[in-house]
Structures are given as structure tokens and as C-alpha cells.
């Protein structure tokens, strides 16, 4: 965690008692002081580090000169999810990681500055600039209302197209809405930024599952962007997974956020897996009142797929990490009572390039738990994709060219459905690239 985040992080004891954001609003004086640290470097490496291409040094310069209206315009020009990404983007891997100040003192905390701009302008009632619908505008459908589909819609709408987003769930936002707990990203921000997208003239239809692209074509959609994400949880089929108290990570996070009833987790919660979703489940379990939360992971610290910042946050909130451990079966009569685990050791590298975990014979032990959450990663819905007529690779990912073209004329794809589950900002970048390609496709037509 860099820069400002340290100054605005709420104390653990306070924050794990509620679902409000971990970080408080960025105060004006801290933001302007941080902005002063920007060197306004030549050929801004920070901007090149941003997948969605936000002109970072330009917006920071606007903070510095007291012109937040231009700052938000500059950010939104490249990324419609300014407030969202200011909160959840692993910016250390992107803009912040490129900041030249890292060779002098410490990098500029770009993410907090972006969040500051988005929050202040949202309070002031930011409205996106009006766009003119082009004469003879073509209808384009974005299937899937997550960051990829919504971003694609924004950039198409800005080029004058008539865009409809189809989301099968009750609310738009995809993983931002259903996959990320509100203590990391307040739903109000997600909703507000999606409202701004609607104000651009994008139609967002919810509760509508698209299973046949030919029907869309028949309805007059001249091009389609498929950004349906990767929502199917990988499931470890061990004994006892049908017991009450065994959760799928996505279902758990959704229930924790929207109910109808929040999960009752009991005293001890075991989260199996060590990706970002596992960290989110652990944080959610803490906030649901668990006395003890344990991450169970079969490899070691270095192999955990979660981001360093998320691991640090989870650790700080008191979650225990049981590494080199794998669940063997879940015990209980009707409800979960315990999980039997086995210790692992690391062998030579497997096909994933990571050391293969090998069970240590005779090391089994029983851990008393009340809830088990399986957070082993997500994969795409192959059945759905096949129905849509899209070719997938062995991993279930839709194969596309760099601009999102699937090979089927007029059909493009991007986001988790093509990369298997990466960051919001990469999904946004994919949507944006596809919008450009779709625009070109429609002009050629």
C-alpha cells in the first residue's frame, strides 16, 4: 500500500464491525500535497502503465492547479469507472508501479488521487458531457453488464452508436456489484458511475439472459460485444461438500452483500483458496461476526495468487493463514462440524509453472469449523458460450484477436471471458479496444 492509503485507512477494530469502506474519503490537503509530488514527467510512464490509458500526469496537474472539473473529464475520457478503479485497482502493478519517483522517494499515490477527484466531483453532481447520436446510428448489443460490457458501451455511445447492455442479473456491474464486498468498494459508487453511463444514452437492460446471438441479429443489432465474465466457481469435489454451511465463494459474497438473509457463519470459518476472492470471503466472514477465520491453501506464501496488498489487508484484519494444507473431506451430520486436512509439501513444478503440492502421508488432522467456503477460482460458462456459437480454448476462454474480434463477423468479446479473470481495469481496456474495433467494423459495413 502506497502513499496516502496509509493515512486514510480506518483502524481494524472499528472497520471489521461494519461494511463501510476500509478507507475514508481522501482529505483535500493530503490530496493536494500528494499532487505536488508529481513531476509531470515527459511521456508520462504512469499513463503508459494504465491499461485503460488514463492521462495520469495531466489529471494530477489539474488537481495541482485547482481544476477538478478538468481532472474528472480527463480521467473519464479514458475510464468511465474513475471512482471504482480509484478504490480497487491494483495500481502498484500499473500506474504507481511506473512512477519515476520510486527511484527518488516513493511513488505518487495515483489511485488515491483518482479516487479523490471522482468522489469530490460526484458530490458536486458530475454529469457526463452530452453526446450527439449519429445519423443512421447502428444498434449494438453488449452482452454482460460488467465493467467490460459497460465500458464497451460507453466508448461506442461516444462514437454515436445506439447501444444496449443486456445483463442477466438483477443489477448491473458484474463482479463490481456481486463479487467485490462493499467494504472494498461501496455499491453507491458503482451505481453512481453506472448511472452516469446511462446518462450518456446507453440502455441497460437487467434480468435478461442472452443465449442466442442470432436472435439479437434478427432484432437489428449490427454488432455484438460479449463480456459475460467468468462466474462458474471451480468446485473441489470432496466428501461433505453437500453439507449445510459449505459455500461457493461467489454465492457467499453475493449473499453477504444482498441477502436476502446474510449468511450465518458461526464461530470458525475456513476459506479454501488464496486468491483475491478468498481474501474477500475472509474479510466478509470477519464482518459477519466469525470469531476465527482461516485461509487454507495447499501451496506456500510465495505461490498465493492474491495481490500482495489484499493479503496484507486480510492478515491485518486477523485472518489466519494455514499454508501447505489441503482439505481432504468435510465432516458433519447435517451441518459442517469440522474439516479434515492434510499437510502438503512442494514438489517439482507442474504444468501451471508452480511447484506441485504433494500430500505428506500421515499428517492428517481435524479442524473444528462451522463454515467452509470454497474459493478456488472462477471459470467461464462453457455451455453458454457454446450456445452463443463462440469457440473456446481448453481452459474455456473465448479466443479473440487483440481488438476483441472473435472470428465471427460482427461479434467481439473481452474481459474475464477472454482472460479468465483479471482486473476491472483490464476488462475496461478490453471493452474500450473492442468498441474501437466495432466502430471500424460498422463503418466498413
Amino acid at each position, binding site marked *: 500500500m502506497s502513499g496516502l492509503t496509509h493515512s486514510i485507512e480506518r483502524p481494524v477494530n472499528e472497520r471489521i464491525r461494519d461494511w463501510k469502506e476500509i478507507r475514508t474519503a481522501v482529505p*483535500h*490537503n493530503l490530496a493536494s500535497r500528494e499532487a*505536488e*509530488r508529481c513531476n*509531470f514527467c515527459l511521456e508520462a510512464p504512469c499513463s503508459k502503465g494504465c491499461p485503460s490509458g488514463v*492521462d495520469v500526469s*495531466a489529471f494530477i*496537474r*489539474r488537481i*495541482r*492547479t*485547482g*481544476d477538478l*472539473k*478538468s481532472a474528472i473529464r*480527463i480521467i473519464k*475520457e479514458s475510464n468511465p469507472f474513475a471512482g471504482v478503479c480509484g478504490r480497487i485497482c491494483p495500481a502498484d502493478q500499473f500506474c504507481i508501479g511506473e512512477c519515476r519517483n520510486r527511484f527518488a522517494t516513493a511513488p505518487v499515490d495515483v489511485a488515491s488521487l483518482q479516487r479523490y477527484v471522482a468522489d469530490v466531483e460526484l458530490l458536486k453532481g458530475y454529469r457526463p458531457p452530452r453526446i450527439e447520436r449519429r445519423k443512421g446510428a447502428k444498434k449494438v448489443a453488449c452482452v454482460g453488464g460488467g465493467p467490460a460490457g459497460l465500458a464497451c458501451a460507453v466508448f461506442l455511445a461516444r462514437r454515436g452508436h445506439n447501444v444496449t447492455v443486456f445483463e442477466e442479473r438483477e443489477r448491473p456491474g458484474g463482479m463490481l456489484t456481486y463479487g467485490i464486498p462493499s467494504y472494498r468498494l461501496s455499491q453507491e459508487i458503482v451505481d453512481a458511475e453506472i448511472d452516469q453511463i446511462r446518462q450518456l444514452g446507453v440502455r441497460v437492460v437487467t434480468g435478461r439472459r442472452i443465449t442466442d446471438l442470432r436472435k439479437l441479429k434478427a432484432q437489428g443489432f449490427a454488432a455484438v460485444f460479449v463480456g459475460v465474465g467468468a462466474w462458474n466457481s471451480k468446485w473441489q469435489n470432496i466428501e461433505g461438500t453437500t453439507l449445510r454451511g459449505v459455500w461457493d465463494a461467489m454465492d457467499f459474497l453475493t449473499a453477504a452483500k444482498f441477502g436476502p438473509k446474510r449468511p450465518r457463519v458461526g464461530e470458525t470459518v475456513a476459506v479454501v483458496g488464496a486468491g483475491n476472492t478468498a481474501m474477500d470471503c475472509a474479510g466478509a466472514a470477519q464482518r459477519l461476526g466469525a470469531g476465527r477465520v482461516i485461509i487454507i491453501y495447499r501451496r506456500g506464501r510465495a505461490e498465493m495468487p492474491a495481490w500482495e496488498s489484499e493479503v496484507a489487508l486480510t492478515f491485518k484484519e486477523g485472518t489466519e493463514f494455514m499454508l501447505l494444507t489441503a482439505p481432504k473431506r468435510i465432516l458433519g451430520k447435517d451441518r459442517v462440524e469440522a474439516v479434515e486436512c492434510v499437510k502438503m509439501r512442494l514438489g517439482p513444478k507442474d504444468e501451471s509453472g508452480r511447484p506441485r503440492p504433494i500430500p505428506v502421508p500421515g499428517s492428517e488432522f481435524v479442524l473444528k469449523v462451522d463454515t467452509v467456503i470454497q474459493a478456488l477460482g472462477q471459470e467461464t460458462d462453457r455451455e453458454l458460450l457454446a450456445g452463443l456459437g463462440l469457440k473456446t480454448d481448453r481452459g474455456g476462454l473465448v479466443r479473440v484477436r487483440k481488438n476483441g474480434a472473435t472470428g465471427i463477423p460482427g461479434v467481439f468479446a473481452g474481459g474475464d471471458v477472454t482472460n479468465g479473470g483479471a482486473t476491472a481495469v483490464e476488462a475496461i481496456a478490453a471493452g474500450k479496444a473492442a468498441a474501437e474495433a466495432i466502430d471500424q467494423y460498422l463503418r466498413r459495413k
Partner: protein
Amino acid sequence: MTTAVEHTLLNVDFCGVKFINPFILASAPPTTTGEMIMRAFDEGWGGAIIKTLVPEGEVVRNVAPRLASLPYGKQRMAVLENVELTTDRGVKVWLKEIGQIKRRHPRRVVIGSIMAAGPAKKDWQELTRRVQDAGADMIECNLGCPHGMPERGMGSVCSQDAEITKHITQWVKDVARVPVIIKLTPNITDIKVTARAAQAGGADAISAINTVAGLAGVDLDTLVPLPSVKGLSTYGGLSGPGVKPIALRAVCEIFKSTNCLISGIGGIGTWRDAAEFILLGSTTVQVCTAVMHWGYRIIHDLCDGLSNYMEEHSFASIADMVGLAARKITMHESLSREYRLVSAIDRDLCIGCGLCHVACRDSAYQAIEWDPKRREPSVDEEACVGCGLCSHVCPVDGCVALKESKVPLKKKR
């Protein structure tokens, strides 16, 4: 990225010359060559004043280093000192380049800057003719450079004398077909006198201020003042954020004492600075040091910020803004004596540093008491005169403010 460099709100008429925006590169290192000016125009600058031309035969040889700067806290170049002379490129080269710039950027304003000795009527008139014939839209007479050139009877010595200022203006006006701007030095007791002299000579506009004469510092190891040119130094001209208050006063005084249009100069680095100069009477503004610091690209945030500000305040044009704040400058005698303010400290924001107490105790009226146990200041409203020192020393934004008070001042001095 799209920016407001061509925003119609920023269009401005200055002496009958149309500018797409009021931002002009001052005659200085950023306008060293025509190629540089063309790049600045590509970026979006409204106008540029070429580096000052002197009569052919004047030998201009520069020294190294020719800059020294004063960082203040984290602010680099809070004040910049320079001892650079006028252009060291020939008159003919420049005349050719003025034509090239105008051909490539017909909508941008090129201003020829010229300088000659006080009594040299022929030189002034010849330079004027040649520069306007080359295609310059305006002429700026540099009567303000404080370093080097005064030793030859040029630069600031000219605008330190009202008669000389007037004569030069007349000579130039006599032959000029394009508007003439007279650039004044601030290194004078009363700039109103020379501003009126320029007006009397027929100047279309005045630009102010040229650099403030100064000395950036002394190298304490070598005992040589800065900048040290092989062990010796000379006085220089100061620019940058630190000279802004001097410039604002000069602009306001010229605005109130002449009818000339003004091109404001002195420490302009952001749109806020520009807005202040315009509100105090400038119609256009000139920038140098900020460009030396950050490059031509700052034109985008200057234009974005100024146009946003104008929209927010419903100004329909730059002309609508000019001088609005200057009207509110009056005699000290005319300021209210009934307006009673006292210091108000926000307990929630106070970090207990005690600086307000120290300041009031040692430099004001002992009106802020201090509880050493709780590390808490409190204002004695009967003793507070409302000078405001506490609010300026407080390290926390918004913690100390001044509020109106009905509590009568009880003198305990």
C-alpha cells in the same frame, strides 16, 4: 486528450489583434528560435513574443551559467534569477523566421520584441520597420531588462526615466503600422509615472512587469554570489512565483492610472494566476518561468482551468473580466474601521502545535492563551484585534479562521 486551447470563451481582442486565447509566451528563453515558437503554437499558445532583437552591430555574447534559482520548501524555482542577454541570433535570421511562423500559423500572434539605446531614434525606427515588414502582428519595446543591457544604455534604464520612455514610444509609434506595446521595468519608485509616459507617447498597450532586479544568493563555501561565472557574478532579473505580488500591484496601478491595455507578466504559472492578472486589469498574460519549468504543454491546463472558471462565473468573455478586482482597491484611509474580526480556532482540527500562541504572544497582542497540559490554544476575544497572523502560521488547512465578532476590544497593551 482534448483541451480548451481553442475554446471560444478565451478568444480575445488585444489592440485590435485577435488572439485565440490570452496566453502569450513572453520574450524569453522559451522563444529563442522560430522553430520553438512554432512548436509552442502547435501545442496551443495564443501568441509569442520573440526574444528581443537589438540593432545590428550590437554584439551579444552570453555567459554560463546564466541562471540561479531559489527553491522554497518543496517548490523548485520559487524564484528564478537570470542574467541572459537579448537574442544572440542575427536580425536577418529572425526576420525570416517571423515570416515562416506566420505562414504556418496565420491565426497565432507573433510579436516582435525590439530594444535599442535610449537616444537611438534611428535604431528604434529601423527595427520597428523591419519587424513589421517581416510580418509581425505587434511590436513590443523592451524597456525593462535589468541585467547587462543597462550597461549599454538599453533595457531598464530606459523605462526608469519617464522622458525617455515617452520619446521612444513616440519614435516607434511614428513609424509603426501595427500596435505597439511598451514593456516596463518594476525597478522604479513609481511605475505609474512611466506608464503615463508611455501613454503620453501613444502606446497602444503596456506590458508589465519585466524582471525584478535581484541577487539569488551567495555560495557560502566559495563566497561568490549566484550565479557564479568563473568566480564572479552580477545582478540579475528575478521571475517566477515569488515575484507575482510585485507584478499584481504594478498591473493594478497601471490599470487605474492609464487607459492603455495591459499584458500582465510576473509569476504566472497556473490559470488561477492568469485569472488574477486579468481581474486586476490585464487583457492578455505572458508566461515564461512556468514554461521554463514544465514546458509548452502547460497551455492545456491554463486554458482548461481558465475556461472552466469563466463558465462557473458566467463571464461571457475575457473582456468582461478585465479589471473587476482592480475596482476594489482603494485608499487605506477608505477601509472600514468598524469591521471587527477575531480569531476562531477549530478544536476538532487543532493538532496542538502551539504556533498560533507563539505568533500572537511574540508578534501580536497576546490574545491566544495556551493550556500546556491539554496542549490547547484558546482565543481571548477581548484582546484579539483580528490581525490574522495565527491563521497564516497554522499548519492545518482550515483550522484557524477569522470570524466577525460583537465582543468589544478591551485594550490591555
